[in-house]
């Protein structure tokens, strides 16, 4: 029951951030997203007795839900980025598009549910979250929501790694964190060089 609740919060915060128009609110929903993901990782790790997952969950809670939003907020203040971010897709189309994406991805994952059984619906939620964060990235033109969309995509990868298999090799979890680190480093370097 706890797993379903946390996955519900994960998906809810992702969808709310699709409809938001203010940057700080987007950061808040992203922080909630990462928080639920971290707790999910800790819960799974405790169930499977996998210490690596518990540690990864704790790192997620600390770094992704507190560290990265704080860091992005500092960058926004320093570079004076635009804080009112309007999606390019009109709201009427968005109301139709988001359920269409959900239905499409759940339809895609239907055969998996029949053959796999146990954790199949989490794969479905992960695939739909991937498409939704791609949509988040595509619908804004400012750079800050695009970065948040990319970070949500990394969260989706982590969700898939935690729930779909019975524990990923540490390599992949390290790889995800490494990817995040490299992306943040490059984003900082690029932002400090020249403004867009």
């Amino acid at each position, binding site marked *: 029951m706890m797993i379903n609740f946390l996955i519900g919060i994960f998906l809810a915060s992702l969808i709310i951030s699709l409809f938001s128009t203010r940057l700080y609110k987007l950061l808040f929903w992203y922080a909630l997203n990462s928080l639920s993901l971290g707790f999910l990782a800790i819960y799974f790790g405790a169930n499977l007795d996998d210490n690596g997952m518990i540690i990864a969950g704790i790192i997620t809670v600390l770094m992704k839900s507190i560290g990265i939003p704080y860091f992005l907020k500092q960058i926004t203040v320093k570079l004076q980025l635009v804080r009112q971010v309007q999606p390019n897709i009109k709201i009427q189309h968005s109301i139709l598009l988001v359920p269409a994406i959900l239905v499409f991805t759940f339809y895609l994952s239907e055969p998996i549910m029949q053959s796999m059984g146990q954790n199949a619906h989490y794969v479905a939620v992960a695939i739909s979250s991937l498409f939704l964060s791609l949509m988040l990235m595509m619908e804004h033109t400012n750079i800050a929501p695009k970065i948040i969309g990319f970070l949500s995509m*990394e969260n989706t990868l982590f969700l898939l790694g935690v729930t779909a298999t019975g524990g990923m090799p540490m390599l992949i979890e390290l*790889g995800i964190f490494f*990817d995040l680190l490299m992306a943040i480093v490059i984003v900082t370097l690029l932002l400090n060089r020249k403004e867009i």
Partner: protein
Amino acid sequence: MLFFLLLPALIIFVVSFIKQEKPNHILAYISFLVIIPTTQLLLMDKPYALWGDYLVVDKINAYVLFISSVVAIAVSLSLLTLEKHVSITKVAYRRFYRAFSTFWIGLIFSIMSNNMGIYWIGLELATLSTVYMIQTNTTRGAVKETWNYLIVGTIAISLILFGIILIYSSAKPTLGEEAMSFSLLLAHANEIDAPYLFEIGFAIVSIGMFIKMGFFPMNLWLANVERASFYPVAALLSGILESAIIMGFFRFSKIAMEINQTHLVVFVFSYMILTLFVVSFLIYRTKDFMRLFSLSGVEHMALIVLFWVSGGVFPALLHFGAHAFLKPALFLSTGVLESNGKYRIAGALRGYSGKKGKLFWILVSLFLLGLISLPPSPMFFSELYGFSAMVDIAKESKHMIAMLGAIFIILLLLSIIFYKFVEVSQSMKYEGEVLAKKVYWNELLALLLFAVSLLVLLSPPVIDYLKGI
């Protein structure tokens, strides 16, 4: 052995931090060292385990790595006189070589890997360092393109990781923790009892790879990026980065062929025909060199994928080798061809004086014609073998007419490209004003290196080696 492979890159990385008067010379000469370990790998017994089960060298690996090192040497050769064609500072040179060394390390890990995770890490390292390489050009348009490249590149890599996790989870019940290695997956491909999960994972992986290679929905980002960066960076992108991605595609699609070949063929064929359709018309309308060459690179990658999926290993590898030599050669020559401005295609092959100039324009026109597969270019042979492989797999199934129709459409689209290239080479040679252009010895040497390697590619020992894979 792994240490020897990584040694030149590490030396370049360290030396690039030392401030010196002529950074490009020393760093370029050091980068020639990369050829030594790769030749040694080529001559060893395969399969050779480089690092446990994680990095394994077999015939395809060694071939691809060897080609990449030849390209790297030629690019470093031509980098010696980059500042004569574009404005670049010494600091930018050093930064470029720093990024180049990380790129090479990532490349080694991704090409040699037998483990999906290590392949992905190497690919990601390579991609992120090319972002940094594009930044050596500091105009405003280049910064915007860098952002675009970063976004598109990271989306593509994340999609690949997503697909890798799905594939791993589909194979985990049967293979346990070892489901990450390519060789084990290939051996036990028929025992995976959730083939649909594998197919979704493979579809997502290939969509990520196709985005990076510049296929159907994302055709223009590659052309824009290569336009915005300097020509050696474009050469590196098209020659070497594509080789890492195509290596991964080779491995993944081999496993997918075991599981369900019909789905794979239908998916890849329809995707490639769409891509060729868009790319051929885009090529028809280009007005400058860089875009022309990068779009033609997309077209050749599409052909390589088509040949591989039809079961033609030999034509795919031959085409890949020929393309990896011709395309960077043409990119490196755009440095000279564009000496008088970007959009002067007409008359680009006129106005060369002296022996160096004559040799240059003869080589460039030969390369241009070789790119559109006129004999005796290796591309001619590879396309012949490739189309025959496509007809071969259609003979076994009942879809001969569909395959012939597909081949007909592909040839039609390729003829548009053929027409444009012939028109470009004619106008380069016979139209336009005669403006003096200067060729430097190192660029000429780079082009000669490529020409020699193309001739070596056509020689019997190499053909036998490729046929034996």
